[in-house]
Each structure stands twice: as structure tokens, then as C-alpha cells.
């Protein structure tokens, strides 16, 4: 997964766990950028009576670097609070929920949006909105019979400051977890694996699960003052990442039975970052176990300390071992000492952005020499009329790694890249293995599930409505 349960500590704290981050020029509103930060991995839609919701003790943030120093210049902060309607029932709802203020709905959630200019903890803050309603989760035909209407009514337009949505969505990130975490097997080509099994079609392991999304559609002019008229202008590219933070201290109390006011819990102190996500699969695949919790706490401008994991990634070294004879050119490359074969292609793609002139037909999304895990997006590049799910590898300059759209197949793209698909761009003596074209997880999109009629929505918030707990399924 791109960042689901990717580090030991955050795997025990799902509501603060960044799972996916998307950022793209909105195809239907190209003067805006859509950023979607997902949290809470692998939500079971039927998980009542206390269904999944955002943490009311977590500070969620979407951060923008518009000058290439790996530090945030614009931050959107989201804080949630819960409101219990009827405390005398165990039920999430005591009847159909027909609107966001329906009295049948007992466990409601509201949030505030704060914009910070400058550093996120010390910059100038402006509260854009308070008490914005999140929609309920999608329960089933008796509780949430008109879910699409309910969810759409929780899309809030803040009069030029942006449009926001925070609530449950379908887990539309498609990935074959079952095979990938079984010693990096890829079902379509697993007959070539070191421990072979017959080839098969890929399985979307996340089918039927949900996530919680914070989606923002923000005018470009709110994020940068660059003219955005020239894709080759370095100021046209911004870096985006998302985080979750918790207060430094959390103390549990023994409540006195007669004291109704006892909070049972005290949280205090500054917010400490416990999770972050820029590019997909970094903490999941690039960073080793012993550094994952530390990485989650760090800020992007410090990411040069992790450079060695990019220049000599473990997965690169495993591929020729797990697939003997499949990657002869990569295997030959690896006979050289690591310092003589740095993967500067991965450094460019994942840590600095791709400079102008490296990829034919692609201007750039280079943000400068600062090595930082940011999802980089060139705002001057228009949305594609005919997108390729392989993004830039498929010749589509508006796709990953130039930002990330909801339909981009980042697993296949990054697998191919790690296998050396574009290493020849920085090392002309290298010839990518011909078998790289067959490197695929065998899952190419999010399956359509009711109430949705397509894999993704064509308008904000783009991620599909969540699958109802009543009728979900996880099998293909």
C-alpha cells in the first residue's frame, strides 16, 4: 500500500495513519488544485456500532511548499469534534438518516479548517470555517438510503477559499496486497518468482474497504503567486504533503462514578507529528523498518538524511533475486559497487522533482536542489484529455509523478521505475530490461461498486462514495 500501516508505531494508531495522498490540477476546474489526504487504512464498512471516524484528538494537515525549500508555506489544518445526539442508545442512528441534521443520527462529526501562512506552528493563522459537517458513514438501505445526496450535501464551498469535504470514501487505491506482501509476488508473472506458483490475474485487496478522506479543491492563486503561464518556469511547481499530529502527552484517569464531568483522559502539550505522506510508497518500501517511525516524525527539508535508501533501494536489489533471470541488465548493474551506480533517477523522481530536459516532452516538476519527500505538481501543465494510468511512463505529462491522480497506477509505475525503466535517462550506458514492460500487479483500476456507477467520480471529491456496510464484499 502506498502508506497504509507502513511503520510499526503508526500501524497501532489508525485514525492518525496517512494512507494515500493525491494532488492534481482539477480536470473540470483547471484553475484549481485538488488535494486529497486519506487516513484510516482498510476500514471495514460494516464496523458498527461505533463506525470509523476522524480522530477528535488528531491535528490533520495538508501542507504546501511553493518555494522549493522543503518547508511549508501554506498549510490547511483540520480539527474534528464529535457530537452525540442521544446518549441513551447504543445505536449510531435510531432511524433513517436523511440529512446532515437528522435527529436520528446520534454520532455526528464537525470540523474546522484553518489556513496558516508560513510555518505551520508559528505562522499567521486564519480560520476559514468552523462546524463544517462531515457526512455519516454509509451503513445500508435502512439507515442511509440516499447516501449520495447525504455525502454531496457535505461538500462545503468556502467562497473563494476553496471547497472542502471530509468524510468516508471508498478505498479506491487499487493494489494486490496479498501477493505483494508474499515476498513481492506479482500474480501475472509469479510463475517466474523464486518460489513459483501458476500465473493468475491480480486481486484488488482493498476492494470493499473504506477510508476517511480530507479533500480540498483550492484555487491555484491561494497556493502560489507564480504566473503559471510557463511550465518550464521553476516556480510553476509546488510540493505537497500531508501529516497527522498528536499532543505530546496523553494521560488516562480513573473516573469517579459520581463525577459525570470527569474527562477520563487528559491530553496536553504541543502537537507532535506522528505520520506523514508525500510520494507514495516511500515509508512503505524505501525506508527500512528501523527508521520508519523516525521518518514519520521528520519534516521534508531534513530528508537528505534518508538519501542512501533512494540511491541504493532494497527493492532494486531484491528484484533479480526474487525473479532470477528476469532482469539480467539490472542484475549486471548490481554487480557494481553501490556508490558507482547511484539511482539518481529515483532521487529526481522522488526527492527533487524531474528537471527540465530529462524526460522528452515533459517540461519539469523540479522544485530545486533540496531533497524532500513531496508530491510535486507543475501547476502550469493542463489536465490530460486522455489520461494514461501509467502517468509520465505512459507519456501523460499530467500524471504521476507529476502530482498523483486518483486513477494513476502508482504501484506499477514505481515498480517499473525501481526495476530501472528510466535509469537510462541518468545513466545512458544502462539498458532497461525488456521484461520491465511485463512488470505489473495485474490490477489496473478500482472496481465499480454500487452505489457508484464508475470507478471514480468525475467531479470533486473524485473518490467514489463508500460501499455500504450492508452489502459490501471484499472478493473480486
Amino acid at each position, binding site marked *: 500500500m502506498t502508506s497504509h500501516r507502513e511503520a510499526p508505531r503508526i500501524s497501532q494508531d489508525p485514525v492518525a495513519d496517512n494512507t494515500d495522498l493525491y494532488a492534481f490540477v482539477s480536470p473540470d476546474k483547471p484553475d484549481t488544485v485538488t488535494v486529497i489526504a486519506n487516513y484510516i487504512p482498510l476500514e471495514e464498512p460494516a464496523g458498527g456500532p461505533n463506525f470509523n471516524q476522524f480522530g477528535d484528538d488528531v491535528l490533520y494537515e495538508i501542507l504546501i511548499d*511553493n*518555494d522549493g525549500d522543503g518547508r511549508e*508555506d*501554506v498549510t490547511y489544518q483540520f480539527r474534528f469534534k464529535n457530537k452525540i445526539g442521544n446518549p441513551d442508545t447504543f445505536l449510531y442512528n435510531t432511524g433513517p438518516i436523511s440529512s446532515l441534521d437528522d435527529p436520528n443520527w446520534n454520532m455526528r462529526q464537525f470540523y474546522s479548517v*484553518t*489556513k496558516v*501562512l*508560513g510555518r505551520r*506552528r*508559528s505562522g*499567521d*493563522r*486564519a*480560520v476559514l470555517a468552523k462546524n463544517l459537517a462531515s457526512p455519516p458513514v454509509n451503513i445500508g438501505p435502512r439507515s442511509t438510503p440516499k447516501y449520495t445526496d447525504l455525502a454531496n450535501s457535505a461538500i462545503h464551498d468556502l467562497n473563494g477559499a476553496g471547497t472542502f469535504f471530509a468524510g468516508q470514501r471508498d478505498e479506491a487505491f487499487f493494489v494486490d496486497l496479498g501477493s505483494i506482501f508474499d515476498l513481492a509476488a506479482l500474480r501475472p508473472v509469479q510463475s517466474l518468482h523464486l518460489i513459483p506458483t501458476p500465473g493468475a490475474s491480480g486481486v484488488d485487496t482493498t476492494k470493499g474497504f473504506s477510508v476517511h478522506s480530507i479533500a480540498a479543491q483550492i484555487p491555484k492563486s*491561494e497556493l*502560489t*503567486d507564480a504566473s503559471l503561464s510557463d511550465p518550464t518556469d521553476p516556480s510553476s511547481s509546488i510540493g505537497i504533503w500531508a501529516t497527522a499530529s498528536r*499532543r*505530546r*502527552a496523553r*494521560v488516562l*484517569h*480513573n473516573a469517579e462514578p459520581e463525577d459525570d*464531568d470527569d474527562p477520563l483522559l*487528559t491530553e*496536553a*502539550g*504541543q*502537537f507532535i507529528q506522528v505520520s506523514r505522506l508525500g510520494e507514495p510508497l516511500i515509508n512503505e518500501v524505501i525506508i527500512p523498518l528501523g527508521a520508519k517511525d523516525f521518518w514519520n516524525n521528520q519534516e521534508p527539508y531534513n530528508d537528505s538524511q534518508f538519501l542512501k535508501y533512494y540511491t541504493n533501494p532494497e527493492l532494486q536489489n531484491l528484484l533479480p533475486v526474487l525473479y532470477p533471470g528476469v532482469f539480467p541488465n539490472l542484475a549486471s548493474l548490481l554487480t557494481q559497487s553501490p556508490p558507482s551506480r547511484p539511482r539518481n533517477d529515483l532521487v529526481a523522481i522522488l526527492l527533487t522533482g524531474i528537471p527540465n530536459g530529462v524526460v522528452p516532452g515533459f517540461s519539469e516538476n523540479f522544485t530545486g536542489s533540496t531533497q524532500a519527500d513531496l508530491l510535486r505538481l507543475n501547476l502550469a501543465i493542463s489536465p490530460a484529455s486522455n489520461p494514461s494510468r501509467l502517468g509520465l511512463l505512459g507519456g501523460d505529462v499530467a500524471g504521476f509523478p507529476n502530482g498523483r491522480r486518483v486513477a494513476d497506477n502508482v504501484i506499477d509505475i514505481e515498480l517499473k521505475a525501481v526495476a530501472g525503466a528510466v535509469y537510462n535517462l541518468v545513466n545512458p550506458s544502462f539498458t532497461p530490461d525488456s521484461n520491465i514492460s511485463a512488470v505489473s500487479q495485474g490490477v489496473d483500476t478500482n472496481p465499480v461498486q454500487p452505489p457508484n456507477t464508475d470507478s471514480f467520480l468525475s467531479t470533486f471529491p473524485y473518490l467514489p462514495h463508500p460501499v455500504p456496510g450492508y452489502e459490501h464484499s471484499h472478493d473480486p
Partner: protein
Amino acid sequence: MNKKYLSQEKNAIEKPEPEKESKKISRREFLKYGVGVAAVAAGATVLMGGLPIPTGATNSSQTKATSTSQSRATSKTPLVVMVKGDELTVMNGNDEVVVKDADLASAIAAKME
């Protein structure tokens, strides 16, 4: 930082729950502050209940401050204190104050033994 946007947003800016930088307070202020202490974390260990201030570890004026503060009503919102080395970090909401007091820190540590 993009200063243009700073200036554009000035009028809309307010400061809810500002994140304050850690600041130093005096030992006297800390002891006074400590009346509401409900938890002490010594290293990784959390101790519930009021913070015992051993008289042997304080001089007379500080003892007086403690005595005075103890006569006041207990704060409804407990403070949380983390002790690490000779530093005591007192937390209340977003606020954090740091006190350097080797005597007090060692006295607390001794109570944990």
C-alpha cells in the same frame, strides 16, 4: 515564503489556540503552577495523582509558595508534567513551559525509586 499572500490574508487572520513556544518560568512559578498537577511522567513512567514536593528538596520560600498554592482549589484541568534529566516540562492545553531544576527533578526521581 510568499509574502504577497501574507499581506492579502492579514485582515482575515485571527489566532485560535496559538501554539506557544516553550518558555522558562521560575521555580517559584512552577511550584505555584504545580497545584493542579495530576500526572508526572518521569522518563517513560507516568504517575497519577498529586505531585509530592519533598520539603527537604526546597528552601523555605519555595516551601511557602507550595503551601500557599496547596490551599487553593485544585484546577479542573490537570497539568501534565514530564521530567527528563534536570528539565521539567509542564503542559496545559497547547501550552508548554520548561523548568530547569536539578534538585526538584532528582527529588521526583528519588520518589520513583
